[in-house]
């Protein structure tokens, strides 16, 4: 256990009937960091969050928060604030009463409560929302209120259960920046659950990628994206090309009819592997700058995505899989790339990865 560990999970198992939702989860969340649980639906990320909150009980395993064993404590005795996808604002209470909901119970002076509420509403950028009702606010505004309510009593831990999923795209991007800034300003240890990789990459200090009840990888957004630990992570976080290959020894790998150089001389000849390559690592018609692995190919299609275009490629070599490359719009224009055109494709040896 490291010194700055705030929340520590060990040996967490959870089954619902025959379905194993979580298998032997061990995890440490550092004080003040924002950790994101990322995974497809059904991977157990929400169950894990609910176990931390005490809303579900693990079958086995322990949870320590700030040195205190909270494994068996009911939710009301734990120390956290929580925000749900549905906001869960009390519809019949004003915004002010919603934010003050947990404060009133702590028998604080009225003036102190009013001051704290005003402070929180300022913090979330809705200073005038106090007398309104939740139904009169937009989804994003409601979620900000839910955040203020969760933070009102300055909990040691903030739990966010898909907080942005119910919002429209623009609001989602705006709010994720705000939540992140607020979290960093307050320094509150935060666990967030999401299935949106972009959200995870942009907000997290560290990401926990989960799949079918177990942890695939824990790491910073860059680590997870640039050095995925497993094929699942590579595939789930960002797009990736997969090339089935056989090692020939000495850092050479045969893909169909061609041999590619990969910075992995340690793999024994004859081993079957998959090579992984991010679409943006592929260079088209590069002016000699890229060393090695330059192949002939034909453009199958060009899909316009705004700043980038997704270019589908068919390699000339037989037995090689189709590839997808991300190319800046300018390069597509200046290179007059179009379906049917022949191109030179460079696959940088140090960008090709072998996983699993």
């Amino acid at each position, binding site marked *: 256990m490291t010194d700055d560990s705030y929340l520590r999970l060990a040996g967490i198992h959870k089954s619902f009937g025959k379905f194993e939702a979580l298998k032997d989860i061990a995890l440490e969340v550092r004080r003040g960091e924002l950790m994101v649980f990322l995974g497809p639906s059904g991977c157990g990320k929400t169950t894990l969050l609910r176990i931390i909150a005490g809303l579900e*009980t693990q079958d*086995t395993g322990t949870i320590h928060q700030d040195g205190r064993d909270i494994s068996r*404590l009911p939710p009301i*005795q734990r120390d956290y604030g*929580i925000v749900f996808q*549905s906001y869960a604002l009390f519809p019949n209470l004003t915004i002010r009463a919603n934010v003050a909901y947990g404060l009133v119970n*702590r028998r604080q002076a009225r003036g102190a409560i009013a001051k704290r509420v005003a402070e929180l509403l300022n913090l979330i950028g809705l200073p005038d929302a106090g007398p309104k009702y939740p139904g*009169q606010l937009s989804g994003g505004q409601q979620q900000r209120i839910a955040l203020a309510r969760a933070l009102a009593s300055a909990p040691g831990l903030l739990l966010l259960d898909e907080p942005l999923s119910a919002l429209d795209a623009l609001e989602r991007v705006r709010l994720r920046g705000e939540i992140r800034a607020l979290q960093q300003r307050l320094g509150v240890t935060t666990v967030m659950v999401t299935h949106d990789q972009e959200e995870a990459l942009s907000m997290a200090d560290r990401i926990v990628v989960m799949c079918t009840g177990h942890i695939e990888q824990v790491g910073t957004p860059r680590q997870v994206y640039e050095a995925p630990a497993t094929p699942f992570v590579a595939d789930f976080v960002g797009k990736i090309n997969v090339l089935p290959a056989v090692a020939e020894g000495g850092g050479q790998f045969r893909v169909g009819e061609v041999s590619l150089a990969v910075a992995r001389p340690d793999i024994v000849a004859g081993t079957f592997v998959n090579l992984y390559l991010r679409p943006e690592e592929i260079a088209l018609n590069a002016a000699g700058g890229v060393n090695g692995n330059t192949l002939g190919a034909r453009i199958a299609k060009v899909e316009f995505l705004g700043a980038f275009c997704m270019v589908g490629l068919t390699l000339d070599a037989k037995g090689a899989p189709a590839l997808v490359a991300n190319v800046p719009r300018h390069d597509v224009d200046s290179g007059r790339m179009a379906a049917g055109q022949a191109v030179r494709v460079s696959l940088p040896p140090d960008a090709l990865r072998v996983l699993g």
Partner: protein
Amino acid sequence: MTRQRVHWQDRLAQVLLLGCCALLALFLLGPMATILIKSVQDKSGAFVGLMQFRDYFATPALKSSIWNTFWVAIVVTGITIPLAFAYAYALTRSCMRGKITFRVIALTPILAPSLLAAISFIQWFGNQGALKWLLHGASIYGPLGIIVSAIYATFPHALMIVLTSLLLTDGRLYEAAESLRTPTWRKFFTITLPGAKFGLVSATMVVFSYTVSDFGIPKVIGGNFNVLAVDIYKQVIGQQNFNKGAVVGLVLLFPVLVAFIVDWIMQGRQQAQFSARAVPYAPKPAPWFDRTMFLFCLVVALLLLAVLGMAVYTSFIKFWPYDKSMSLRHYQFGLIDAGVFDSYLNSLKMALLVALGGTMFIFGCAYLLEKTRGVPLLKAAVRLLAAVPMGVPGMVLGLGYILFFNDPDNPLNGLYGTLGILVFSTVVHYYTSSHLTAVTALKALDNEFEAVSASLKVPFYKTFFRVTVPVCLPAILDIGRYLFVNAMVTISAVIFLYTPQTRLASIAILRLDEFGEIGPAAAMATLIVATSTAICLVYAVLTRFIVTRTQAWRTPVVL
């Protein structure tokens, strides 16, 4: 297995739920179990196995009442359901005028005791009936009278269920069908009917059960035509043979329970048809169709009004059919001076107690069931107990109550003969519908309110009073109104349980009718209708007030 420590607040909720379960067991299972036991005992309390059942089925008169009960109920169901469906179809699928008026008129029978229909039909078609000649010598006293009265009494119940299922059809299905150029008849058979299927089954079971278990109608207009509900009454009140009564009770319980279980299973199969994205159907004007539907509804509504109107008219005229001048003598002499008015006050008192106490208990219990943590087995037990009353005819429940509470060995024996036992039996009798209303309202709330409260360290009961109750207030008022109106008209569950001091208005109607005092009987029925109407108006005003004032957060509901 790790188990969470139970916080005292969660424990409190569990203890309260256990209390609810114990009360339901005491006031539902206790009486029902006693019936089972009594049915296999003779009068002295010795075990006789199924002998009494054998005796019962060997008595031709009793056996014939099984047959009578069934065929009458089947005929009533066979007429009421198509009628209610057509009426509901007109209300939802046409653009005719006066929909709200038609809807209100169609629901009026709910406000009246079933006896009112019987009295009214006697006035129209009885020995001195205004339209007796229409029957060409046939008698209204008997199956004919029972059937028409029961149709009147069950029509609104069927209508409400069918109406709901027709309203819940997704309008987009019709638009899709239209774009595929589907003919009208095919839309009807492929969209409308399947959409209403579960509602139709439910309505069928409700009408059948109601007719089989109703006691007031056959007692008043049935003449010598025997049915099961009246048999129980005769065995228990006439011959003081409680054990035989228990046997007949079980015979009556059986078909109602079967109908209830069929409905239960069917509802279980029903998928959520009306997703959050569904669009309500908006009919388009079709002059010929709209006019036909209008005519149909007009005829039905006039017939319904004729029944209610005749009873009200009878209560205000001097002496049918000889002196038709208006007077209040039935109210003054027949009710107040004859000391019968007290039973109206009893009814009022009981109905208020049922509405207040019953609503609090039912909503509280449903809340504990839906929104608190833990004790899954206890919750399953309470859910089952809450569902059972709908499958138990009032007569059978009432019989169970005397058998159970009249037993000198029962420590609750003191309850017998009080207004309290009437309150308890009525709440239990109408438990299921109210419970479902409460559960539906609670399920519509965000599931995470309780989780958020716990994270904010607010006890669940504070959130219950500050959030849950205010938000569910419309549903709570609805339950209160439902219980009040039914407590005013109920007769079958209380017929065995009253004493001269606690006699209710509906029972007084029965007694007055037995003595041939049809004027005062009609007056009492009219009083009940007027009271229930007043309560419904209060409810409507209150609901509107609440929606506009205390629930400012609610987006205004457009009706």
